[in-house]
């Protein structure tokens, strides 16, 4: 008997009860094909997608918030870091105007200085207005004068030398390089990033755990299928491939849903923020939550996390499937 000849050819046809059935039509579409060997519904898919989505959402929120804090801090730092101020205080027996001009000249002579601007008396007064009240007679008040020194970007100039020169020539002037504020902002941004990374690690851990549980559950639920596959001669690679596919898709779906929700949320908040801008609540909200603008980096981070979620899901399930298969025969 050749391999293409049906094996029952040799059996004479018997009149059997089902013989008449054979004349019946095939299923309307012919035999059904290509059903997934591991049924989708059996892998607790929706609840796993929910977990992955939640985790991706959380990861997205965290990444967005961190990127907002970091970018706000660095904006502020670069604004402030590119300026130093010199304050010239009125002192007995000294000419405030002359002192101010002299200090400005010293600043102008320093390396890396882009621009020096001397605040007028009025401008200087306006700076202290909140504390002294307006409507003061300026001449009577010995208000300190401000000089704003804009620096060229790049390496910061040698503040120590400048400070020394100023101290020698204009004792009533003090240089403020905002070092304390910049350090503060840096520490703050660093803390935010650390907290963010902590939360991300937590989120990833929970994701891996959930996926591992779900995979194990799916393997257990599909134990009969795994067995039958082995019985008809499937190798472990074939079997695990059947599961793999589902979990990669599943993780990706969860990631897209969760990450997408995070992106949408940021978008909505940003839109709302633009909409209420100028209303009384807006600055309070801004004070509380920052400026709500998620830059390209934030969006990129969220996208990266979607991919990460899918990969983590696939990897966790692959490990679990392989470990389970080793124990099954």
């Amino acid at each position: 008997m050749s391999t293409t000849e049906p094996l029952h050819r040799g059996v004479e046809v018997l009149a059997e009860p089902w013989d008449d059935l054979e004349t019946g039509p095939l299923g309307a579409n012919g035999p059904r094909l290509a059903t997934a060997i591991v049924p989708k519904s059996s892998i607790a898919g929706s609840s796993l997608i929910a977990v992955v989505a939640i985790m991706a959402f959380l990861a997205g929120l965290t990444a967005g918030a961190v990127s907002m804090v970091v970018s706000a801090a660095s904006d502020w730092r670069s604004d402030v870091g590119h300026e130093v101020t010199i304050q010239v205080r009125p002192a007995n027996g000294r000419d405030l105007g002359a002192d101010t001009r002299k200090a400005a000249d010293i600043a102008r002579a320093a390396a890396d200085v882009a621009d020096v601007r001397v605040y007028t008396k009025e401008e200087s007064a306006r700076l202290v207005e909140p504390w002294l009240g307006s409507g003061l007679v300026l001449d009577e008040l010995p208000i300190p004068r401000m000089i704003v020194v804009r620096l060229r970007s790049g390496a910061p100039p040698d503040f120590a030398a400048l400070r020394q020169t100023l101290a020698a020539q204009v004792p009533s002037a003090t240089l403020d390089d905002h070092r304390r504020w910049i350090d503060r902002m840096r520490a703050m941004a660093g803390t935010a990033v650390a907290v963010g990374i902590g939360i991300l690690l937590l989120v990833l851990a929970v994701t891996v755990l959930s996926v591992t549980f779900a995979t194990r559950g799916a393997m257990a639920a599909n134990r009969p299928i795994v067995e039958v596959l082995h019985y008809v001669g499937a190798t472990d690679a074939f079997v695990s491939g059947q599961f793999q596919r589902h979990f990669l898709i599943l993780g990706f779906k969860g990631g897209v849903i969760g990450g997408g929700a995070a992106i949408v949320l940021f978008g909505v908040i940003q839109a709302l923020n633009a909409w209420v801008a100028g209303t009384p609540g807006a600055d309070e909200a801004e004070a509380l939550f920052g400026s709500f603008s998620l830059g390209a980096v934030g969006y990129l981070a969220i996208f990266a996390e979607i991919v990460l979620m899918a990969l983590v899901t696939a990897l966790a399930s692959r490990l679990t499937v392989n470990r389970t298969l080793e124990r099954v025969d």
Partner: protein
Amino acid sequence: MIVFENVGLRYGLGPEVLRDLTFRIDGHSFQFLTGPSGAGKTSLLRLLFLSLRPTRGLITMFDEDAATLSKDGRATLRRRIGIVFQDFRLLDHMTTYENVALPLRVLGREEATYRAEVVELLHWVGLGERIDAFPPILSGGEKQRAAIARAVIARPQLLLADEPTGNVDPNLGQRLLRLFIELNKSGTSVVIATHDIALMDEYDARRLVLHEGRLHVYD
């Protein structure tokens, strides 16, 4: 083709279900395996199918020591064996057609190359009308026939059938027996575990009888 030497089997800490089994199954041979309920027929078939390891003794299959086979080696070897389980083991989420075609799918064959063959076999076992039905809605006898079709579709070198006619009427039982005989004539060794005395009387073949853990062979 298959040689058992002093094979013994116990489950866990229980008593020995099979004791000192020494026999061989030749290529082209046909045998019935019988014995009372719980005698160990299914267990013996599982040993032959490598889905169970003996607690002692040596099993040689297709000239390989079964104990030294790797997992993938077992998988490859199983492709040469067809098996009909007593409880069918059809996959409930696949149609009859897909269940029967599963061994070919696992072999990596293209659907177009086996489709006609599968459909013809299904017609022949009387499931022509049930091709698109899912196992849960099949009658007991229909499931059994689907399981048989799946076991023979890949023309195995060894066919193991556990109570393959327990759920069909005598007429149909005879027809299925003819299928096994035909398969045997084309070169397959056949082992049929059965309680059905009428069926065994139909065809004069070697009988392996299990009783109290020991095997008695009547050629």
